[in-house]
């Protein structure tokens, strides 16, 4: 197993995340897709740190902390959405349209 | 007295600050405080005129405080001959303006507060010797206008037709909010142009100082000047009502309340012309000479076109507003001649027109308050019930058409002379014709409103001016005649400054 394999995996995960982001309509699923993309990046960080050295691991710790915060806010938003629309479908939340 | 100029600028602002802490219900104290602020500034201006050494000329009574030393921004105040004349004008107009708006009932506190802030800015512009501070005061003078017109103004109907009728479907044309918005937006676009030119000049002068004296000593390259001058001309010119950027003026002046119209047409439009001359022409002398044909040509259009437009109006305030467009054309024409005679005439016209149009708007406000209409076709015979108003209105008309013995004559005649001896003698021809058209529209308005059989029905019981309303007609009317018979008092100030400034341009024209 070398760096290429790891990066290929990370890319694959990322693409899955993007696909999920663009196609899923439920807010929770979108959040999951976002987490997937985030973790793909984390994986790349760790892979680089392992094969090339550098402060990648440190970034991952930061990223995880931020992810936690993000999930907290995201889930809170999902709750609000649900209260407002009795549903978590994102395309119903388009009040900000111009 | 030290820091006299600073006190003049600060007096209205301090009065405004005092108003802030007064309760809105204190009707009389609010007016008295405003009047005190205005009178102190006016007295200061008179004091400046009395102590200014008009033989020596130049910048006098300097004051200097550093504001942003790293960028070279100083609160630097000093006064030159032009400044003296315009300080006097502003002082007289604000005092009479406060007295003329004694009866404003709606949100009186805020009205006087904004009026005082505005006039503080005007005073600031006339004494600033730092371009940045000049611009700052300029904006302070322009912006309160939005609220003053938008809140205290009056609306009227404009038929939405013509080739651009579609554009009006969106706007409440004729409304006070529309007038206020148009005025503010057009002047802000002008300010943007000024800002660009300002930084252009600042950068080329080394980027260390906005001091006007420093900028004057810098020899700007022709390319910079050729960019900066048109920007300054259009930017300041918008406020001076330069064609075709004058259209904020009729709507704005017609919608504005009395004192605001007085201040705006009487003083603010002069800020524009003053900016073109003091900043544009003095800092960019080569470009001023290059572009003189355009500045003068447009000014000639202003004079004739403004007069013709005024002749077609049926609303009293519009007539006066368009006459301002026409008369500001005379100011710009005098400036474009690049001769001392023309420049003296231009600054004298600023003063004369300020007084004259202040008088006009004060009287129009008086008539409007009583008759509740501005359509001159509905009026008639008012001379029987308000003889004093009729007399003073006639006097303003006479100054407007340049009758000898009024300040308007001295100003217009000097501009005509300057035009005739300048590089483009033909400018004098349409300018003089414009004065004749002026005679047509002002006297027709005068005849329709004041002459004819005594009014009947709703107008039968109109009254003449009362108590504080007398201030504006008497003071401004007397000034028109005084400065018509005795021009030297002002011309000595103006002339010494014109000579200094023109010395920079003379080699190029």
């Amino acid at each position, binding site marked *: 197993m070398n760096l290429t394999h790891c990066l290929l995996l990370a890319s694959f995960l990322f693409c899955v995340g993007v696909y999920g982001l663009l196609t899923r309509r439920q807010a929770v699923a979108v959040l999951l897709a976002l987490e997937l993309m985030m973790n793909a990046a984390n994986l790349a960080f760790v892979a680089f740190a392992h094969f090339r050295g550098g402060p990648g691991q440190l970034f991952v710790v930061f990223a995880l902390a931020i992810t936690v915060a993000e999930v907290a806010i995201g889930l809170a938003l999902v709750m609000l959405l649900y209260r407002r629309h009795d549903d978590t479908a994102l395309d119903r939340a388009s009040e900000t349209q111009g | 007295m030290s820091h006299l100029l600073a006190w003049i600028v600060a007096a209205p602002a301090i009065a405004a600050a005092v108003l802030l802490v007064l309760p809105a219900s204190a009707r009389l104290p609010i007016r008295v405080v405003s009047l005190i602020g205005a009178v102190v500034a006016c007295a200061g201006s008179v004091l400046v005129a009395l102590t200014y050494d008009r033989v020596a000329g130049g910048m006098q009574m300097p004051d200097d405080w550093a504001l942003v030393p790293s960028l070279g921004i100083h609160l630097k105040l000093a006064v030159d001959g032009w400044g003296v004349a315009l300080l006097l004008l502003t002082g007289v107009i604000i005092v009479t303006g406060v007295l003329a708006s004694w009866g404003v009932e709606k949100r009186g506190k805020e009205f006087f507060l904004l009026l005082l802030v505005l006039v503080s800015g005007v005073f600031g512009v006339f004494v600033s010797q730092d371009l940045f501070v000049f611009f700052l005061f300029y904006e302070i003078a322009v912006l309160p206008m939005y609220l003053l017109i938008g809140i205290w103004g009056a609306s009227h109907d404009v038929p939405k037709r013509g080739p651009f009728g579609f554009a009006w479907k969106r706007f409440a044309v004729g409304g006070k909010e529309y007038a206020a918005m148009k005025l503010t937006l*057009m002047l802000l676009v002008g300010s943007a142009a000024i800002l660009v030119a300002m930084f252009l000049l600042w950068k080329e002068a080394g980027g260390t100082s906005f001091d006007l004296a420093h900028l004057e000593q810098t020899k700007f390259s022709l390319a910079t000047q050729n960019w900066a001058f048109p920007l300054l001309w259009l930017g300041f010119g918008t406020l001076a009502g330069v064609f075709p950027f004058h259209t904020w003026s009729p709507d704005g002046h017609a919608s504005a309340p009395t004192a605001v119209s007085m201040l705006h047409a009487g003083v603010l439009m002069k800020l524009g012309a003053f900016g073109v001359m003091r900043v544009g022409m003095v800092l960019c002398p080569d470009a001023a000479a290059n572009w003189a044909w355009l500045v003068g040509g447009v000014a000639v259009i202003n004079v004739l076109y403004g007069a013709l437009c005024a002749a077609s109006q049926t609303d009293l305030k519009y007539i006066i507003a368009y006459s301002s467009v026409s008369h500001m054309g005379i100011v710009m024409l005098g400036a474009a001649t690049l001769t001392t005679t023309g420049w003296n005439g231009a600054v004298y016209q600023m003063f004369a027109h300020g007084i004259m149009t202040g008088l006009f708007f004060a009287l129009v406000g008086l008539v409007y308050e009583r008759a509740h209409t501005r359509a001159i076709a509905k009026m008639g015979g008012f001379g029987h019930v308000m003889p004093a108003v009729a007399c003073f209105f006639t006097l303003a008309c006479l100054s407007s058409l340049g009758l000898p013995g009024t300040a308007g004559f001295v100003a217009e005649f000097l501009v005509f002379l300057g035009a005739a001896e300048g590089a483009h003698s033909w400018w004098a021809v349409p300018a003089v014709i414009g004065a004749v058209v002026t005679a047509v529209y002002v006297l027709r308005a005068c005849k329709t409103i004041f002459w004819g059989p005594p009014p009947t029905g709703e107008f039968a019981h109109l009254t003449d001016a009362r108590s504080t309303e007398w201030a504006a007609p008497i003071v401004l009317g007397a000034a028109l005649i005084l400065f018509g018979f005795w021009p030297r008092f002002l011309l000595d100030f103006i002339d010494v400054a014109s000579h200094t400034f023109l010395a920079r341009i003379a080699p190029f024209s």
Partner: protein
Amino acid sequence: MSSLQSWAALAVLVPLAAALLCVVLPPLRRAGKPAAALCILASLVATAASIYLLTQHEAGAVTRTEVPWIVLGGKALASIGVNVDGVSVVMLLVVCVVALCVQVFSLAYMHDETPSSYGRYFTLHALFLFSMNTLVVAPNLLQLFAGWELVGLTSYLLIGFWFHKPSAARASVKAFWMTKLADMGFVFALLALFVATRGFDWNARLSTETATLVTALLFLAVVGKSAQFPLHVWLPDAMEGPTPVSALLHAATMVAAGVFLIVRADPLFAQAPATCEVMLWVGSITALFAACLALVQSDIKKVLAYSTCSQLGYMVAALGAGSAFAGFFHLGTHAFFKALLFLGAGSVIHAVHSNELADMGGLRRKMPVTTLTFGIGALSLAGVPGLAGFFSKDFVLAQLEGKAGWIPWTMLMATSFLTAFYMGRVLIKAFGGAESAKAHHAHESGGAMLLPLVVLAVPALAAGFLGGVLAEWSGAEYHVHLGLTPVVASCLAIAGLLGAVMVFGRGRAAPFAGVLESLDRASAVDRTWSGLYRHVLLGVSAVAGFVDRYFVDGLINAVGYTTIESGARVRRLQTGRIHDYAMAVVVGALLIALWGVLR
């Protein structure tokens, strides 16, 4: 300042002081009689000063005092002051005497006015006297122009004195506009003169072209002020003012200011033969044309107004012929007899309460003094030998002998006949014949009105004999000679009067009255001017107003509209759906990546 100039300055400033007092002290003005007394006192002082000046004046002497008025760069650009010479001294006397007579006459004539309006009337008279004297003693053309405009202002205010009458309001603005239009010429002349000489002196030496330009422009102003064809249309309308005002402003002094200007600026006009040629023709045409119209007027004041136009035509023609003195001499005698005629007409109007000749008739028995003095004025105007009008008119005609192929001379001779004819008509219709209904109750006016008539009748009778003295003062040549002109002129004057007796004495209409009346009604000139005003000026201004509101302002509103509209379009991109934004982010990221790979 020598004592002479102080006296001249006094004649200017005392009326100003009186007017100012009346203006700044409203109670004084509103009291009426005290204001009148003050103004008449001022006129008395001015008259006394002018008489003293006349007695002290040495023939041919010119003294002048100027103080700087507009100073630029340490040099006087314009100055004001007094100029005392033969012309100004005589003119000052004429103006002051006539003004004093008219004001005394007005005391009684205007007594029906309310006190405040009575005071206003006399204030305006004092203002007029100040303005006119400013003009007369002006040491340069700029001050003359200032006086010129100020008399125009007082004329405007006095024509519109009864401002409740719409016709008076119309007439006053018309008078102001017509003269203001012509005054453009004066302004341009001042500008041209200033550019050429850096001054406003009428003694300047100019090149022929400049002199022609300046004088032609000045003459344009004269055509307006002195009511010459084709700008004469305001003068008949100006009769809307009170009759004493017509006597003073619109007959004796103000309208003569134009002629005075040419006399004053004679050194300039002498350098411009082309302008003089034009003046000769304009003067002759006006004289004849206005005399024809005077023949068919039914309003006694309008007869006199057209007669004034006609007589001013004589003066202008004389000046065109190169004789400033002839024009000035006729100006002087005309001022007296025409003021007399107008005041006489005022006395009649006061008695019968009508301007119409048809309402008069048979007044000779009721109003003997008025009849006598009016008769003297009429005969003097008609040019009956021995009276003042005869001498000056004869001298004018003598100057025209042989000029331009005798045509102007012939025209003015014809005018002489017509003048006698129409004055005969007025005499017969107003004072002769049977009494009309209105005339039945008429009675002679009081002393305050008769005194000025008698005083003015003296110079109307005898001023002609002063020609020699006047000429000596002005440094001109004057001699009465018995030749073709006086004989023909006398014969024509007498023939005209006899003709009037033959025609009107028997109650007939004037020959060709139909033609002339249609000429007057159609008043082609007047209609042209009102058409120009209504259709051209107001038309162009309506177009300008429309263009400004709907095109210039429209364009600026269109800019605002475009901004708002394009904003409205662009904002549709903001769908508010998260997936659209996410898609945009992804596509954007891909594009950036692609750009990174490809470069």
